[in-house]
């Protein structure tokens, strides 16, 4: 006969949060920040095929840290949701805030109802018509949504990286300057990163419909020379 057992809800939530945090801390962090021409996203990523940063819609980008298969599934759901909404209504009706709320709902639901919470944190960035209309959303493993200004850091070591970005950040950095700032912040004393360790993409305010652009390894190396 199975024994009935009781776990206090506080304990259960704490255990789940600890579990998710541990999973996320095993991966590398990433940074998104506003720069002169839009929003730059810089991730530490040893893989050159399994992407952390990707395009969701014309002006919306996605980035995830933690377990790859989990955030990649979330990415695909985001693309679907955005494309469906754009098809059903109009391209200009697709927005990051609504998408962030959908993600929060799903991640939060998984956190409280499923056996295992998702070990991911995600970032949704939307490029506005002007820089003051840019939106950056940070969605945590338990579904908490944070609306942040200027820059976002997600991942295990976020606090120390955030402090380093805070000291070097000024509005209207060039792409080169913001990539350098991100490299410095993502590096630690015993681990210096180079262009080869990074994945970089931008949402660029250039008048084109699709603003998302990946910076190839080669052009990143040239940029950082």
């Amino acid at each position, binding site marked *: 006969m199975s024994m009935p057992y009781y776990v206090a809800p506080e304990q259960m939530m704490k255990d789940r949060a600890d579990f998710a945090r541990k999973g996320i801390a095993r991966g590398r962090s990433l940074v998104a920040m506003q720069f002169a021409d839009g929003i730059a996203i810089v991730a530490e990523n040893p893989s050159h095929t399994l992407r952390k940063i990707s395009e*969701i819609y014309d002006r919306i980008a996605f980035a995830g840290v933690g377990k790859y298969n989990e955030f990649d599934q979330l990415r695909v*759901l985001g693309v679907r949701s955005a494309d469906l909404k754009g*098809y059903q209504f109009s391209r200009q009706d697709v927005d990051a805030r609504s998408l962030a709320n959908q993600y929060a709902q*799903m991640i939060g639901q998984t956190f409280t109802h499923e056996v295992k919470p998702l070990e991911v944190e995600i970032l949704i960035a939307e490029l506005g018509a002007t820089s003051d209309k840019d939106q950056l959303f940070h969605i945590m493993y338990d579904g908490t949504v944070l609306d942040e200004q200027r820059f976002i850091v997600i991942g295990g070591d976020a606090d120390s990286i955030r402090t380093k970005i805070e000291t070097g950040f000024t509005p209207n950095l060039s792409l080169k300057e913001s990539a350098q700032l991100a490299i410095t912040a993502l590096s630690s004393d015993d681990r210096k990163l180079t262009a080869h360790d990074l994945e970089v993409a931008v949402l660029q305010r250039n008048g084109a419909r699709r603003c998302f652009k990946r910076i190839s390894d080669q052009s990143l190396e040239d940029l950082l020379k």
Partner: protein
Amino acid sequence: MILPVFPSDQDPGSNFGELLKRVGLSPFEQFADVSKLEIPHATTCVAVKCSDGVVMAGDRRATSGNLISHRSMEKVVQADEFSGVAIAGAAGPAMEMVKLFQLQIEHYEKVEGQPLSLEGKANQLSMFVRNNLPAAMQGLMVVPIFAGFDEVSQGGRLWDYDATGGRYEELDFVATGSGQLHAATVLRVGWRKNLTTAEAVHLVSQSLWEASDADSATGGPDILRGIYPVVATITKDGFQRVSDNDLEVVFDQITAGVKQR
């Protein structure tokens, strides 16, 4: 709205059409018989291969029976950076098909992380045409042309289709729609290997002129309102529409030629 999550055996993958079916938004539903209704039809479109890629063109007229329902319809549209699609047939389903095709290409690219090959896109369009077959049987036929610059072979390629989704790659040129016969004859006589882009633009314009001269459903250049056919070049620089100012010069030459006959 909530995120569209599906059990793994019903997951649509990178197929946008399947996704629409799953959420009940698919436009490919059984139509009632509309063959007795006067609905707008779009007509003549052509595409030719040239040394730098392909040139596509379509007239601007849509007709309902013997009435002109639109004078400025755009039947040649960009599918993605290096390809375009041109449509003839029932205007409503045709425009819907183009919209869906553009979305499918982009959806695939985003979900899979890399674009479909040119041949993959041609195949995909063939599936859309086949899905439209029940509607075609009831009077809503759509017959597209697909053309693009193939980054693998570094040259232009073009395809035409039949109502059942049959897909035929053509070597030189294609024409579709009610003015097809006249346009194709002009292309057949005027086409030769290694046309320059400018010569190809002239040839497609000439073919639409002759089609509009002989077929009442094909519109010629509307000089009064400044409406010219849509002509687009697709080369290694991507899809580019030829400006109305340039087309005005081309059609001036054509009409000058006709006067001297």
